[in-house]
């Protein structure tokens, strides 16, 4: 139930789904001649690698695997292991997401939560099928080891980047050119739609009337409603995106200046930028044209043994915590 389809669709893909892209990429990368050409260009893919394309429906937490009948028999056991592990992951993801839904009060186990989100994605009367990018606040560009174990409450965009493999900052510039405007755009559309839903957003979904099969208007006759409807943004916190890059301030400034759009976003303060030094871990924040060192208040992160312990039964925004499964309560 979503009259304003384009509000939920991917802004980066122009409203399309990424499944066919993944399938095509996997098909291409599995071909020996393609791999031979890549080896000539310096990208060596080991011979025992097999690519499988997949699609994760973020609303029903369904994962679809494409062309899995072509997986060679040597890899079948690994593939089964991965599928089982992803099944468990999507059930836990459903449970973690469901904490935000008032209607999911009865979904306690991961399987119940999975059932609940599947029903939600198909329910004809459900105006909040998923919260999507709602509550987004941070985009972290860096190695995964930087954030592993950190409970970010689904508020972060995570982009993989290794500063040690990018001496010229070319990769960083490309990532910022692609990811910067996209993440900033998503953050700003939620920001404005929640700050003034009647003027910048689309109002409540209830009177929406699909017009011309392109957009929505209210009721009998009105202007086309642009922006996001209230049901999508109601739990959003209007903060500008904080772009955290794992690199030194000079290299970050260098990468930003390589792209005019990103420069405009940063200079005009549409997004905030911070850097984490890959060696020392010092944080610098971009303020008034320069990167200033940031001294955090010394407050240890709470440590929990599982994320469920942290979010169980709580509907509101949660502060970050460190999830450390090996820690046993003493």
């Amino acid at each position, binding site marked *: *139930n*979503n*009259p*304003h*389809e384009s509000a939920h669709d991917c802004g980066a893909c122009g409203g399309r789904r990424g499944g066919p892209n993944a399938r095509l990429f996997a098909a291409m990368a599995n071909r020996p001649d393609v791999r031979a050409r890549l080896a000539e260009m310096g990208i060596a893919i080991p011979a025992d690698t097999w690519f499988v394309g997949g699609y994760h429906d973020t609303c029903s937490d369904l994962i679809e695997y494409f062309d899995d009948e072509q997986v060679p028999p040597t890899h079948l056991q690994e593939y089964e292991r991965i599928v089982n592990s992803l099944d468990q992951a999507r059930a836990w993801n459903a449970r973690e997401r469901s904490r935000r839904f*008032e*209607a999911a009060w009865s979904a306690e186990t991961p399987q119940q939560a999975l059932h609940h989100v599947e029903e939600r994605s198909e*329910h*004809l*009367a*459900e*105006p*909040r099928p998923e919260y999507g990018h709602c509550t987004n606040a941070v985009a972290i560009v860096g190695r995964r080891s930087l954030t592993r174990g950190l409970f970010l409450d689904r508020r972060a965009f995570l982009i993989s980047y290794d500063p040690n493999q990018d001496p010229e900052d070319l990769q960083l510039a490309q990532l910022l050119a692609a990811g910067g405007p996209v993440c900033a755009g998503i953050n700003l559309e939620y920001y404005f739609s929640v700050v003034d839903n009647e003027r910048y957003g689309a109002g*409540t*979904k*209830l*009177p*929406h*009337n*699909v*017009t*011309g*099969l392109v957009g929505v*208007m*209210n*009721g*009998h*006759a*009105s202007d086309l409603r642009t922006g996001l409807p209230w049901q999508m943004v*109601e739990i959003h916190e209007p903060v500008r995106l904080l772009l955290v890059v794992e690199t030194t301030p000079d290299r970050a400034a260098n990468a930003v200046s390589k792209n005019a759009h990103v420069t405009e976003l940063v200079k005009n303060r549409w997004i905030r930028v911070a850097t984490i030094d890959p060696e020392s871990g010092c944080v610098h924040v971009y303020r008034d044209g320069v990167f200033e060192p940031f001294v955090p208040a010394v407050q240890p992160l709470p440590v929990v043994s599982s994320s469920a312990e942290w979010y169980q039964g709580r509907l509101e925004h949660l502060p970050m915590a460190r999830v450390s499964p090996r820690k046993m309560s003493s």
Partner: protein
Amino acid sequence: MSVSFLICSVLLLPAAVFALLGLGWLLGWSPRERTIARITAACYALAGLAAGALWAQMTFSGAHQVEVSFGNWFAFGGEGFPLILRVDRLSMPLIALSIVLVGLIGVFSVRYLHREPGYLRFFTLLHLFAFGIVLLFMAGSFDLLVAGWELVGLTSVVLIAFFHERTEPVENAIRVFATYRACDIGLLTAVVMLHHFARSTAFSQLLPQAWPGTATPLDSSQATLAGFALLLAAMGKAAQIPFSGWLPRAMEGPTPSSAIFYGALSVHAGAYLLLRAQPILAASPFVSAAVIAIGVLTAIHGTMVGRACADAKTSLAYASMSQLGIIFVEIGFGWSWLALFHICGHAVVRTLQFLRAPSMLHDYHRVHSAAGGHLTDTGGYFEMLFPAPVRPWLYRLALDRGHHDTVLDRFVVGALVRLARRLMAIESSFLNSNISTPRPKPLPVLWAARRTREGIDG
């Protein structure tokens, strides 16, 4: 379970829930959504069971109609307002359909209106509507039918104006209300006439045969007069031309209310009125011909304008209107059973289409991605009936919805307003010659003057 107990429970369950929610609201009770949802579900589950049991009993006992009488509300000189409830082969399916559809809409709305500020208001009005429509279908006399009719009209108007913080819903709701009231003149006139002609409006007197019968004590001229008045009322409620401008405007309400009212139940109340009054229509060939003509014109109008609609709910509204035109044609020809089946089937299909209207883009995207592209245009046969030079004219006509609204605004409403202004001018010129226009009292100055005088004096 006696039949009268079942009849009363089907009628009074929604009324009781309305009273509970309404009184509670007045007294400051703000129940949680889950409470309201549970009460609603229980009410319609019980009412559905009662309706099912009633239908089963009626079928097995072979009775074609059952009447329950509660005496007269008031009576004088041998006439009165009888409180009779009748359940027969016309009203039983419609009552069962109403209970089921309102229950369905209730379940839909529990999720759809989650966290909406007007949640309690919506459900209170939904229950009042359910009571009204069941009363309308169950009424055993035209007098009592008026009560149900008015309730249905009132609740539909208030639900159109559900989003009362914006002006368009309220403006459109007032327009719908005005159309309803203007056409209800027909119903009230008909009731008065029937009292005058037949001394009573009870169906047992006026329509002595079990439905679908054709016997009536009225003669041809009496039936013509009463029939035209009833036709006026039915035209307003069922959005026949020229009173059809209100139907697309009624889409200002939330989707479930659009579904239940303009897809399913409220618009068919007009058709029900004519079906119930079938003997009166049959006694007068003029009225029957008028019903057929209006039905045909409405069907053509509905399909033509529907082709120029750009948005989902309006095109569904016009589709609904064309079907209603066809139903009127069937009633005019006297094919009562066909009309009844048509009403029930249409109600169910249209409710589904309205409830699916918000998912329309999603459905289209799924179809397009499965088909690999946009679907080829098919049809256009209706347009091909007309020669090419005529089509732009028809398109403009369809875009302005047949100019009905403009004509009514300028020549009917405008004429009334001009008349009122002229009368007001006459009145104020008459008054001005005798009484001077009151000057605004300079109260603070007088008070200050009095205070200084008092100060001076004492």
